[in-house]
């Protein structure tokens, strides 16, 4: 394999890897504050993209995307207020089952609102045939957008959690909800905020990958599964690790294709998931002790 080919595969891997990473970060945010794994995370990406596509027919692209992010963020809030908050004394398992049900409902709702057709947002720069050359490999300019937006999201989140009051309040909730409440943090609002945040970044990610991956109502579930794999691989709750894990999985899949028949690509992710769960459930980058609640 020559260098240009290697770079081509690597870029392909990094592109999908960064999407997985964003989904995983979405999980982590909610997991940190509530301990719930939100199976409907993938759906937020798709709802965001679909909404943006609809809005893009009546508004310029940046406005459409902004609108979609806002609407999806609101949806995240609604989901939390209507479903999650109502459940009293819920075991984590019960909440997981609720989010599974939510993911199904959201998917079906999207099907009936938008129908089953494949759509996509227009490319942010260039068209379907534009290509840029990097180190001998050719990619669509949209890939650079995906990488750029992902980097911005991760950086923004890190800054948010580290330096803003709200961010620190959320981390406090994650560490010990009762103690946070005693310190005057409105923990229930933090939970809602975590859903809103996850939904928002999910929507943004969905919009930026839509030109490349196209958008169809049922794309949420496979994305969510890859997202968990990455979140668990990095260690639940650790967003920086999620980025690393996401890139790792993306690269793994791309290089599996280069040597094996491509039908093994999907199996790679599942095998990784099972191995991690069996061998080191706390994740590759987590230390053994209770760091499961660490945010960003």
């Amino acid at each position, binding site marked *: 394999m020559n260098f240009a080919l290697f770079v081509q595969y690597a870029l392909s891997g990094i592109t999908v890897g960064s999407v997985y990473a964003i989904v995983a970060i979405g999980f982590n945010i909610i997991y940190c504050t509530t301990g719930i794994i939100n199976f409907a995370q993938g759906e937020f990406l798709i709802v965001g993209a679909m909404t943006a596509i609809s809005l893009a027919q009546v508004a310029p692209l940046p406005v459409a995307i902004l609108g979609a992010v806002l609407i999806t963020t609101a949806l995240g809030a609604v989901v939390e207020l209507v479903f999650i908050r*109502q459940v009293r004394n819920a075991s984590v*398992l019960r*909440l997981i089952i609720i989010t599974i049900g939510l993911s199904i409902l959201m998917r079906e709702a999207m099907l009936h609102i938008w129908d089953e057709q494949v759509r996509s947002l227009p490319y942010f720069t260039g068209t379907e045939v534009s290509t840029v050359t990097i180190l001998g490999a050719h990619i669509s300019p949209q890939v650079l957008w995906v990488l750029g937006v992902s980097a911005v999201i991760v950086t923004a989140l890190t800054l948010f959690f580290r330096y803003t009051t709200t961010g620190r309040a959320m981390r406090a909730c994650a560490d010990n909800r009762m103690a946070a409440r005693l310190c005057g943090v409105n923990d229930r609002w933090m939970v809602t905020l975590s859903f809103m945040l996850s939904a928002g970044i999910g929507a943004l990610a969905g919009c930026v990958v839509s030109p490349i991956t196209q958008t169809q109502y049922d794309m949420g579930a496979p994305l969510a599964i890859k997202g968990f794999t990455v979140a668990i691989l990095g260690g639940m709750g650790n967003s920086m690790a999620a980025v690393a894990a996401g890139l790792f999985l993306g690269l793994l899949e791309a290089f599996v294709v280069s040597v094996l028949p491509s039908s093994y690509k999907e199996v790679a992710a599942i*095998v990784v998931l*099972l191995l991690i*769960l069996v061998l080191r459930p706390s994740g590759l980058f987590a230390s053994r002790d209770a760091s499961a609640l660490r945010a960003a």
Partner: protein
Amino acid sequence: MMRLRIYYPVLAVAALVVVLHIVLAASGNTYYMTQITMSAYYALVVIGLCLLMGYAGQISLGHAGFFAIGGYTVAVLTTCNLTSVRETPAIGLLRSLGLLVQWQDLYGREILSFQPWLAFLAAMLLTVLIALVIGLPVIRLKGHYLAMATLGFGLIIYRTVLGAKTFGQADGISNVPAFGLVGSLQVNGRAPFRVQNYYIAWVAVLAAMVLSLNLIHSRVGRALRSIHQSEEAAHSLGIDTYRYKLATFILSALFAAVGGALLTHYNGSIGPSEATVIKSVRYVAIVAVGGMDNLWGAMIMGVLLNFLSLRGVFGSFDDAVFGAILIGVMIFAPQGLLRVPRLRAVTSLLPRRSHG
């Protein structure tokens, strides 16, 4: 004496099954039996899953995988055509042992394949083996890690049957022959065998119920319930929680595989759609709505909801209905519909003996 009382509902259901048959026959609607039979086989999976989720407290998001293992094993072994190698020593030996059978399919082709009962046994053995291999590492996990691991297992099974030529890839395996049981009894989907198969399916379901009732009212069952309530407490009492959970996992896998194998013979085919995540989620939804630890609830809901779904009553909202059920039950009635206090109030109006 106390023990026998738990079997009364079994007799009641058996009687109801017969009554239903009479009613359907009298009104000329015996064709409903087809979908009732199919639903009964799906209910087998649900019963096993109820044991696992309700009594052992372990969630499984991949149980459709065991259904698929049972069904596909049976399908592959009974449709693999060994005619081209029939003279080789290995095959010759199998033939002389009576393990193979020669038959003609619908198009007049000669097929030499394994006896259905042998295929069934093989399916059971394979299921136990796989459940053991999967269960050993996975049962140790808790909460969402267990959910993810079972999900991963289900996905591997799905990808395997979708990708491998042996399993017919996307189109699955069809032309699966009937499964002869005893005498002229066979698991067969054709119209003349409809009534027979209706009873075969219900016998299977009731046998599973008897087995399960037996289990939960025994020492093992009590151990399981204590594990579900508090694993640490059970452990401190000396109960080998790990072994009990593993055993229940394997048993529930077996139930699912039996359902899969019998339904495959009944339908004459199986496809990758039986191994999808959405199917596993449906099974979980049914157990939840019947009441996590309510075996009868699981059985009733299993038959009812699958029947309605197969008849297309839910139309294009099929998946949405199950999603709504999941959410609704978890929020409003986590004990299941048959345990809601209002229902208790209704049933308490019925006359009862003084010692309840």
